[in-house]
């Protein structure tokens, strides 16, 4: 049975055996670069196709079904189209920032990959402050969006960027509090520790009420942070045409588009790690046989399954709800989510101290 478990260590061992340490490290870096790039490319293609298929089925349509079997290569064709398009830069734009913005957005997405545990022992960097690292790096993405909106010298872009700035920073708070809930329960910021703590039950079950509240808060907050409907005010189509990326075309637009989906993947991966036990299989109490069968499913499948479930949830939101207005959006955060988050944090602290969680 194929599993990614142990591959990293064996590759690393092999490299260090064959080459001198510097060389081995360099080789490792190359492998990471290649893996990350291919992951980005594949994720982009898969997620865009998934979005279109989910949207189509919800909207009683078929969705893309012409390119390849069942429309599987539609996104490949779209990417080719975007590559073949001319990347226009408005005359009045701040050209340096305009060109820099997609890079910033991509870098943020890429950096966030580092602490994610894709499978057992398959993690690029198991940093000991993993959760804090994710919080801090993900808040950088707003810079790319602000940069893009400002540099375009377009009124829609600027409005979109401003909205997105206010929105992302606001929702970062409740995302942070939701993450803290799990940190309180686990007592560690390290991703591998958090996953290990869920060996005999995921936090969403073990942490009961506060964990469920935290999960709901987290999902809402990350939907807003990734500028997805119903919080897609930064690119509200009917109001600001395309928001902050109105002026982007060709490959630069594709990078923004890709970054949006990568961000969704990453926040869902983190959500899966925190609340659904990452790559941990589903274990129920002392049903030994059941637990054993579950163990046979590779950890990478577990991880991807959970992540894609959350991604589906976020897509489901998008194709069901209308968009909020900008003041309502901020109201939701500051009047509902934030007080609830604070209250929930206290609740979880009490539960953790008294040991009421399972």
């Amino acid at each position, binding site marked *: 049975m194929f599993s990614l478990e142990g591959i990293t260590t064996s590759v690393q061992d092999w490299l260090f055996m064959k080459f001198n340490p510097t060389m081995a490290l360099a080789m490792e870096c190359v492998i990471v670069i290649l893996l990350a790039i291919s992951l980005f490319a594949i994720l982009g293609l898969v997620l865009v196709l998934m979005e279109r298929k989910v949207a189509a089925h919800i909207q*009683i349509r078929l969705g893309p079904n012409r390119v390849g079997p069942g429309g599987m290569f539609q996104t490949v064709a779209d990417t080719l189209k975007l590559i073949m398009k001319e990347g226009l830069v408005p005359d009045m734009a701040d050209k340096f920032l305009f060109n820099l913005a997609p890079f910033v957005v991509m870098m943020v997405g890429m950096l966030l990959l580092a602490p994610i545990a894709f499978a057992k022992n398959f993690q690029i960097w198991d940093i000991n402050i993993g959760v804090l690292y994710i919080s801090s790096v993900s808040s950088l993405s707003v810079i790319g969006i602000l940069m893009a909106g400002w540099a375009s010298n377009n009124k829609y872009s600027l*409005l979109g960027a401003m909205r997105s700035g206010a929105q992302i920073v606001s929702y970062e708070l409740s995302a942070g509090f939701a993450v803290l809930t799990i940190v309180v329960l686990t007592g560690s910021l390290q991703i591998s520790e958090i996953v290990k703590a869920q060996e005999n039950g995921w936090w969403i079950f073990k942490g009961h009420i506060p964990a469920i509240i935290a999960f709901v808060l987290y999902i809402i907050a990350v939907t807003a942070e990734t500028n997805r409907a119903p919080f897609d*005010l930064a690119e509200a189509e*009917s109001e600001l*045409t395309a928001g902050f990326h109105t002026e982007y075309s060709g490959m630069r637009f594709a990078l923004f588009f890709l970054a949006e989906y990568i961000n969704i993947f990453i926040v869902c991966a983190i959500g899966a790690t925190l609340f659904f036990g990452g790559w941990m299989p589903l274990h129920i109490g002392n049903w030994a046989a059941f637990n054993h069968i579950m163990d046979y499913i590779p950890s990478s499948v577990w991880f991807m399954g959970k992540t894609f479930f959350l991604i589906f949830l976020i897509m489901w939101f998008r*194709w069901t709800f209308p*968009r909020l207005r*900008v*003041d*309502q959006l901020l109201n939701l955060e500051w009047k509902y989510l934030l007080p609830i988050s604070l209250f929930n944090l206290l609740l979880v602290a009490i539960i953790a101290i008294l040991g009421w969680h399972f």
Partner: protein
Amino acid sequence: MYNQTEILKDTSELGADGELVINMGPQHPATHGVLHLVVTLNGETIKKIEPHLGYIHRSIEKMCESLTYRQFIYVTSRMDYLSSHINNLGCALLVEKGMAIEVPDRAKYVRVILSELTRIASHELWLGAMAMDLGAFTPFFYAFREREMITDIMEDTCGARLTMNYIVPGGLMYDIHPDFQKKVKAFITQFKSKVTEYEDLVTNNVIFQSRTKGVGILTAEDAISYGCTGPVARASGVSCDIRKLYPYEVYDKVEFDEVLETAGDSFARYIVRVKEMNQSIRIIEQLIDNIPEGDFVGKTKNVLKLPKGEFYTRVETARGEFGVFVVSEGGTTPHRIKFRSPGFSNLSALNHIAAGSKIGDLMASMGTLDLVIPDIDR
């Protein structure tokens, strides 16, 4: 690197308080057509909206001056293309009134049924488009599924899906399709079973309600002063349903309620339209089994000539009161024709109801005014 960029411009040259003038349209996803709004913004708040029209002005009024009374009816299909049948009806009624042409009952019944179907189709499209303006894409497809059934009925009977061109002065161009009654009944069942979906997805949705309630309030007095008609005025509590006030065809024989709301906000306009669809269904149900047998077209002269004088008819389209004003010199063509289009008056209220609200509210206000641009530009 930054020498090409003036980071902060002097605000004095840009008007007070950093006002931003933004063009919405003609190529904008929310204006549904080529409406051009010049919006003055302060931050997110709208200070002023100024419509610029004429992107698809074809001067239908001038065109009609060179068309005969048989021909000019079909030009009006292209004004408010979503209620083309009702526009045609209004013109035909004018000719019939001017020349005192007797219309057989069968034609009257069919005309009313098709008018109501057109109204439902128009409201369905509006519902989808309005939800889409507010960011909910899915109801659009659900609404279009039902609308598709109506267009199929229209296609069977009228031979066209949008610009029906089914009415001639004196009756109908040809008889209804043999399956007409069966299909309409099938549509009514389908519509009734699916109408709850709009409630789940749109009406009761907390986001939708908060986006539309209290947004774009138009008081009854303003509605009259701005000449608003149709669902827009009825949402403000102004009774203005031509079908009730000045019944034409067989509207005086059917039972239906004029839907009135008092709030005058976007949500009320939404509710009025949804309830109106149900009332239309009610009208159709009363008529569909009772279509009398007989001729579908009355006797008319070969060449229609309106007597010298002035004529005015009005009908209730999906958007409101559609008036046709004809000045005849006694010839075969009108001397002057004026179409009082509901959209034009409704649009004039836009600045009033949207000024002071957010950009997001503009979508709700504009969406619920149900603007069809060819109707405004004519």
